[in-house]
Structures are given as C-alpha cells and as structure tokens.
C-alpha cells in the first residue's frame, strides 16, 4: 500500500491516495492513446480528462480491487445525478477515499 501503516491502524492521506487514483486513471487514459494531462486534486474527470461514464465504472472496479469493500464508489455516487457525477473532481473522490480508509469502522480492530 502507498498509504502509511501505523501501529495497529492504517492511516491514509490525500497525497498517497491521489497517487493511487492518478495511477488508475493513467491506465484508463492509456486506452485512448498517449496523454500527458497532469492529474491533481482539481482535475475534473470529464472536462479535463475527457473520460466517459463507462471509464468511471472501470475506475470503480480499480478502487474495489485496490481498497476492497472499504471504498464503495457506487454508494459514493448513489445520491448524485449523472451531471454531478461527470463533473466530479479527482480531489472530491480522493477526499472520500481517505475518509473511508480512516473511518473507525474500517480499522482492522473493527473486524
């Protein structure tokens, strides 16, 4: 994990999760050919990266593979309409992932 492990708990921070998510996005973007768009917290999935909604489904699968059930993209977007989802920024997703990973419910002791 690129998230830092501390005694008994896993502590995730924005920088580590951003690096993870950016890596996932690079793999998805590679399918469209070479792309050197910088990926930061303010980058939008659709406006900047020009991703399709089906790419976000792929991203959801990558998040599941990386973080397991601790992060559920489908639940994260469940209350958003499609316009809001495609206007999402990388930063909003990163913040959500960090919150999920640092949630007491997701600590190893919580079982």
């Amino acid at each position, binding site marked *: 994990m690129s998230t830092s492990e501390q005694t008994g708990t896993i502590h995730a921070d924005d920088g580590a999760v951003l690096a993870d998510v950016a890596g996932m996005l690079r793999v998805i973007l590679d399918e469209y050919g070479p792309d050197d768009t910088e990926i930061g917290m303010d980058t939008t999935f*659709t*406006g900047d990266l*020009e*991703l*399709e*909604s*089906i790419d*976000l*489904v*792929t991203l*959801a*699968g990558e998040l599941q593979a990386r973080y397991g059930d601790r992060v559920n993209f*489908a*639940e994260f*977007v*469940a209350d*958003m*309409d*499609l316009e809001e*989802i*495609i206007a999402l920024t990388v930063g909003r997703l990163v913040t959500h992932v960090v919150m999920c990973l640092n949630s007491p419910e997701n600590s190893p002791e919580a079982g």
Partner: protein
Amino acid sequence: MAMVHTGDVGLHVQRLPPTGGRPAIATAVLLHGLLTDSLASYYFTLAPAFAAAGVDVVMYDHRGHGRSERPATGYGLDTFVTDLEALLDRLELAGPVHLVGNSFGGTVAFGYAVRRPQRVAGLAVIESEPATVGWAHKLRGLLGRVEAELSENETEVLAWIAANRGPHTARLSRSAARLVRATTITREIPASRVLSEDRIRSVRCPVLAVYGAESDLAVQGMWLSSLLPDCRVRLVPRCEHSVLVEAPGVCRELILPWIEEHRAVTGAGAELR
C-alpha cells in the same frame, strides 16, 4: 472488470449484489440503449438503489458498446437477444429474472420475453417498444441519418456536439462514431426480424412501461396496454426520450416498488465479481 464470453462475443458485465450480504429478493438484468449508451447509465442511476433494496443487479454492455467486444458484424436484434440468453446461461441465472430495458435495451428485453417467457418474471421498459415494422422503419431513418452525417463531416459534427452538448456527450459521440464506422450496426438493426402483434401478445408477464410525457414514444404506452394483459404505463412529466438520465429518481421510485411487488424466487446464480 468482468468479461463474460458467450461463445460468440465477450461481454463486459458488472454485478451489484444485495448490500449487506443478505439474500436477494429478485434478480434484475439491466439493458442499455444504442450507440452512445453503456451500462454506466444504470451503474450511476438505478443500480445502487436496487442493490440497497435487496435486488441482485446484473448490468452488461451490449456487443459493440462500452467495454464489450466490438465484432465487425452480427448486429441484428436476434443476435442481441441471443447474447442476453447466453449471458444468463453463463451466469447460471436460470430462474425468472426481471428485465429492465432503456430504449433499444427494452426492445431486446421484449425479444427475450417472447423467446423465453418462462425465464422472465417481469419487464420494465423505459422509452421503449417491441420490434415492429414501424420500429424498424424508424430505426432505418435514424441510423441512416447518423451514418450519413458522420461519413460526410464527422469532425464538424463532433465539434458541434462538444460546443453545444458538452465534453461528456462529445466523448460518448466519438465512441458511437467508432462503432458506426467499424461495424454494420446501422444497416443490420433496421433489417432485423420483427415481431407480429400475436407474438407481442404472447408476453404474459407483468410489464411496466415508462415514457417521458413529452416524448414521441409516449403513445406506445396506449398501444402496449391494448395488447398486453398486464401492462402498467407511467408518464414522467417534462421529460422527453432521456428519462433515465433526466429523472433517475422518478425511474427508481417507479421501477423498484414494481419489482418488489412482482418479486420471484430465483437461484443465486454463479458468483461474478
């Protein structure tokens, strides 16, 4: 990403099991529309709420669409119905399932309900109709125009879409243009075998038909109710064809209770994550 090979084509499948690991109250297979559509339209609208309500949700990209394979030929309606049949076999979903179809996805669902009536617990269609002579004529005109515009001035068409409909629609349109260019879809769909009224009448399962009140297709609701023994029609105010995207909450509120009302005991099926 899960790819399921039917023996003929690889289909991209996403499955959302009931949340919390509880037993499924029903299985719903969600079928998307043509060209610019994919399973993402469900993944971000109906699917999470269905799974939260205890429905085992199966979504897939039709051949040529989304992340499914894109063979050069094989785009008649019967082939799409065969894909659905083969997919349910591969997933070992032999029990009756609920089919939810948006636009062309509903046309595929009607085709399957006619072919395998015992395997369909219910049919919920959004802005859709069964394959008739009129449907084929309409699709011939629509797909012919798409092909002509793209072949004559694809760059200008896509630039106009980007400027007037936004970057996401532009990206979807670029994918649709690839599908139109690389396959026979625009010629094969209008040439599909259609259903007689008698065959449409053979659909005995409960049907829920949802239309945008402002859509040209809304009149199909009256016609369907006159043909089918158990057909409920609902119109969504101020919506046209894109009801699912424009009013996902209304679609959820209409379809989910309807599935709960018509729930059927189904097997758990093969595990797919």
